[in-house]
């Protein structure tokens, strides 16, 4: 394992740690469940995928490296699906938006029809 190989793995790990940090800070600091879901489903998924990509570079294209690629594909397929399901159930429960600038599109159409 030479120096360039180690440098690539270390850079991917650092990028992954940065995106995990961004995602968790967004989860804690954002005011609304929809904003929090945005931060966690994009940034934290990118961080975990970058760390799994570092595992692919470390282990090579066979065995555990191939499993890392399967993990990246699985995360990219399932993170938007899970976020969509959570936001849909939050909308059905009636969780409101933070502030009054944002609205659901159907409510806007009904208001303009009644005007």
């Amino acid at each position, binding site marked *: 394992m030479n120096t360039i190989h180690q440098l690539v793995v270390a850079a991917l*790990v650092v990028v992954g740690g940065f995106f995990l*940090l961004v995602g968790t800070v967004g989860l804690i600091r954002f005011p609304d469940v929809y904003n929090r879901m945005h931060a966690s489903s994009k940034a934290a998924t990118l*961080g975990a995928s970058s760390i799994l990509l570092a*595992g692919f570079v470390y282990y090579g294209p066979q065995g555990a490296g191939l*499993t890392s690629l399967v993990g990246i594909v699985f*995360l990219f397929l399932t993170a938007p699906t*899970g976020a969509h*399901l*959570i936001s849909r159930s939050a909308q059905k429960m009636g969780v409101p938006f933070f502030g009054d600038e944002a609205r659901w599109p159907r409510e806007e159409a009904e208001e303009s029809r009644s005007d």
Partner: protein
Amino acid sequence: MASEASLLEPVVNATLILAAALTLLAGYRVIKGPTVPDRVVALDTIATNVVAIAALFALVTGEGLFVTVSLVLAIIGFISTIAVSQYVVEGDIIE
């Protein structure tokens, strides 16, 4: 191994500590979160962080088996997210 991975090992160890601290911080949103979907989102983030921790542990120990462990943890997190988001709306999962 220790002499070869002189550059890689402190970086991976530091990221492992960072990811563990971030998982503990996401627990704040699980406890405090005002609504139930907030808690589900925080648990989903914790599941993603644990996937990253398992992959980092595979790097730091050199055991490729832990990549498979992270894949299984990702599957469990996805299924639990679907189950809870179905439960809070419908009231039951399997009729």
